[in-house]
């Protein structure tokens, strides 16, 4: 390990630039949404934008500290870090509830959410554990232990209760999937009990996690779109029932992804891409169809329960208020938006979209910058995620790879759920949009997560294990 390396050598500039771009866009966006005429200075620390700048500054300072510290420390102190996080999660349960959840640790307005930092702790602990396990020796015990590392903070978070953070922790299922720690051993153990059957592996067991996610994701979208009271206006003047809209959307998405995948994949994979997209489309259609008609076949009280959860049954002015307002804000942005600081629905002042500076931060962005702004955000996130996957895959250290995938998946879930609820593709679950939402805890935890990743990656050549 060469100590005389400069701090910035081997830093992944692509990821760093996207990260800074998002920070700048995020602050600009918070300034716009929370703008107060009486305190127009963006550095006015009594205002949310001033505070957000403080948080960004503090986060960057933390990042500098992270860069000064040798990344070995995370490997060495993985267990203490994890345990510290667990303790915080327990302590926070004793704190007074704020907005109905025991999620905040601290005094007055200055507080942190341990759940945000528990994500880092869990990622480190999982990396450390998987690093120590030989994949080829994966068995029921290792699978259960890895799952336990994930489940302990999840249970504590559920006790707060904080459904959003709970959902985010399912990210680690994907990480384990990538590392081969699937539920296959458990399924094999069960299946092989049957006399005459002796499987080495099952396809379902191995790919259970992504299949589950696809099914859940598609089901939610299908139900949200096909059971809408309104018919689905696919093109102005062309009104079609919601379900056919889902299938048409799937066809469009398949064609778009086919073109993109053909374009980015290597020549030898091109035929595979065709096959995968076709299979994917058929599977997705099958799932959507069965969910749709399965749902129609449900008893009315069961239907009602699902509709309540998805926010489909409600009066848009009362119960489905948040999502309806958020979608109106996003949808009214048009192609190029209403202009900076011109959001009529999602500014804090107008307050039509509640929590528009935190959970619904995407609303003002989409409303003010229109489709151009929204697609830039989506593309930036996609770039960031793919960049992190690329970083993960170039690691020699399995610890770093697990950590990197954890970061990618955590950001992905935040991105997917947060933007999903702004566009009617997810029920309203309160989780922030990384680097954009106002708030110290998420800003610090995501920045630290990012800097630790950059630091680990920059030392990829000095690490052997």
């Amino acid at each position, binding site marked *: 390990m060469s100590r005389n390396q400069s701090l910035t050598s081997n830093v992944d500039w692509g990821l760093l630039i996207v990260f800074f771009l998002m920070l700048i866009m995020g602050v600009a966006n918070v300034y716009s949404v929370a703008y107060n005429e009486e305190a127009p200075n963006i550095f006015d620390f009594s205002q949310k934008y001033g505070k957000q700048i403080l948080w960004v500054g503090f986060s960057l300072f933390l990042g500098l500290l992270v860069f000064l510290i040798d990344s070995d420390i995370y490997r060495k102190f993985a267990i203490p870090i994890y345990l510290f996080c667990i303790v915080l999660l327990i302590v926070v349960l004793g704190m007074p509830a704020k907005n109905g959840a025991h999620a905040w640790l601290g005094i007055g307005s200055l507080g942190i959410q341990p759940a945000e930092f528990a994500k880092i702790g869990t990622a480190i602990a999982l990396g450390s554990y998987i690093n120590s396990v030989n*994949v*080829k020796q994966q068995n029921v015990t290792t699978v259960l232990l890895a799952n336990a590392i994930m489940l302990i903070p999840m249970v504590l978070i559920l006790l707060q209760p904080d459904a959003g953070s709970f959902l985010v922790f399912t990210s680690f299922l994907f990480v384990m*999937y*990538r590392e*081969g720690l699937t539920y296959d051993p458990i399924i094999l153990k069960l299946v092989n009990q049957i006399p005459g059957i002796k499987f080495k*592996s099952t396809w379902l067991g191995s790919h259970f996690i*992504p299949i589950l*996610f696809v099914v859940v994701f598609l089901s939610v979208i299908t139900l949200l779109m096909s059971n809408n009271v*309104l018919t689905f*206006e696919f*093109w*102005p003047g062309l009104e079609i029932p919601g379900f056919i809209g889902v299938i048409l*959307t799937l066809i469009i*998405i398949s064609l*778009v*992804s086919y073109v*993109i*995948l053909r374009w980015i994949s290597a020549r030898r994979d091109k035929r595979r891409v065709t096959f*995968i997209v076709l299979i994917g489309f058929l599977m997705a259609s099958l799932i959507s169809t069965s969910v749709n008609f399965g749902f129609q076949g449900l008893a009315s009280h069961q239907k009602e329960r699902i509709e309540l959860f998805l926010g489909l049954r409600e009066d848009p002015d009362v119960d489905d208020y948040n999502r309806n*307002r958020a*979608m*109106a*804000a*996003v*949808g*009214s*942005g*048009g*192609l190029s938006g209403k202009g900076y600081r011109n959001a*009529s*629905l999602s*500014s804090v*002042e*107008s*307050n*039509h979209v509640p929590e528009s500076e935190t959970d619904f931060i995407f609303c003002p962005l*989409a409303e003010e910058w*229109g*489709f151009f702004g*929204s*697609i830039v955000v*989506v*593309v930036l*996130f*996609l770039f960031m*995620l*793919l960049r992190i*996957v690329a970083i*993960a*895959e170039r690691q020699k250290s399995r610890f770093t790879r697990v950590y990197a*995938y954890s970061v*990618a*998946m955590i950001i*992905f879930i935040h991105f*997917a759920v947060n*933007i*999903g609820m702004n*566009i*009617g*593709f997810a029920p309203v679950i309160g989780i922030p949009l990384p680097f954009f939402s106002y708030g110290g805890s998420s800003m610090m935890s995501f920045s630290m997560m990012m800097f630790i990743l950059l630091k680990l990656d920059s030392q990829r050549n000095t690490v052997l294990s």
Partner: protein
Amino acid sequence: MNTDSRRYVIVIFFIVVAVIYGTRLFYMQVIDESWTLRAQEIAEKRVLIVPPRGIVKDRNGKKIVVNKTYYNLMMVEKNIKNFDTVAFAKLIGWTPERVKYRFKEIVHDEGYDKDPVTKKRTVPRYQKMRAYAFVKEMTTDEMHAIAPYLVKFPGFYEEITSMRSYPYANAANILGYVSEVNAEEVAADRFYRSGDNIGRAGIERFYESDLRGRKGIHYVVTSAMNNAIKPYANGKYDTTALQGPVLNLSVDIELQAYGEKLMQNKRGCIVAIEPSTGEILSMVSAPTFDPNLFVGRRSTSANYPRLSLDPAKPLYPRPLQAEYPPGSIFKLLQSVIALQEGVIDVNTGFPCNKSLVGCHNHPNARNIMEAVQMSCNPYYYQAVRRVIQGGRKKGLYADAEAGLELWSKYMHSFGLGHALETDIPGVRGGLIPDPNYYDNLFPSKKRPYGHHRWAFSTIRSISIGQGEVKVTPLQMANIAALIANRGWFYTPHLVKSVGKKGPLPIYKKKNYSMAKAVHFDPIIEGMRRVVNENGGTARRARIQDIVVCGKTGTAQNPQGEDHSVFIAFAPMDNPKIAISVYVENAGAGGSWAAPIASLIIEKYLTNKITDPEKEKRILEANLLNVVKKGK
């Protein structure tokens, strides 16, 4: 097991979700318009800006109708929190019960819609999000007293509004009043919204479409609390509210006030017109009332019942609607018709044959001037008989029919028998009988005289302005103007100009009568003698240095004492003012109506009174209780 290829599962996952979201965003933001409409519904509001009504000035530019600032205490139920009824009631000086009742009243006043299921009118139109006036029409002082404490009552706020105010307490019968629109008016005209004001009578009503001005529309971005935050699109689509134009009346408010003063403790009217323009200078209806009594709901509801039940009928617009028998002033027109028809000439004389019709004692009229001067009843009996029974048709009845037909046409050409198109609502036309009237309507619709069942002898009382003939004071003044102009008149009107536009086109058109100008000269000479020569009936109308031409009338009144009538114009050459004065139950025209007219003429022409005794006599007279004949 090599799990490296599983990276693609994750990568595909990322890409597919990003593509789905991108597609969805494109659909929501670019293709589908419904979210834009939804956003407009949520966050944009059309605010109607109601301008203050146009103000009204008199002919000398004095403001006679202005706007005064008032406040409404507004309420939005949705924003009311922790409402303390007792404290609130104490603040606005009501009882808590009244406060509770007011809430119910507001809901009730908005009305109900039909329930789509039960088909009953049970669904209230009242909306919790909307602003309603909880207390209306508070004065600036009243609002200043409570405004500092309103912060304790979220959901309540002050709203500025304006109401009419009348610096002169005169001309109530001309100006009319305004009040809140009712549900039918809102339904009939899209201009109005609940709570708007509308002109109810007088010129406020006639010129409503001018005075109300143009409402402004402001598009604003509203917050979730329904407060306006900022103009939508920087006010690009807004229109400004325009106050209605200034209404310049032809009325001289000082003259009007003087007329009302003279008419105090009397019933009747004064109408003064500028003959050369048809502009009404003054239109007094006595008894009258202070127009400020009808400002605002509270004041109106306190005063309206009292005034409407007053037996002297102060709310009755006498100059427009009181249809009186004209009496002897009618002889002026009979003279003109007889001269025009050639049945007499200027020097035709008739003996005062009291066997035909009663008369007072006077020498025989040797010519038309003397007939006017002495107001000889038998003279006109004979002259008008020649007009009616003119020998145009064979047979007495057919001849009378043809004669009356012609005669009524003359009268219509003098502006009688039909409502003048004066710019004020409620103008009545009086009555000029024509053949149809006696054939089918008189004495009653059930038992009329019938076709060819009447002749001049049947209807002779019309010759001296009695019987069936009915004329309003406005028409009488117009006759004075017509004679002053020697045969034509402009339709009398109250508004000289609306903003920068002149009077309505109909007031620029001369109405010519069927009589030639030359036939008016002897009549005018007669009128001069009535006032200015001994033996005339209106010596009390004489004014030093001004030649007043007039004619008295003493209209017989079956219900009580005779009405005192006088019409006049002055000066004789180049007349500036034509006037009619009608004093109910006051006896002979020369005794009350003539001096009142002369005071008005003198006041208008010279702005001073040379005979204070005359003025004092009028001011002190109380003719209200002279109803029954003294005999």
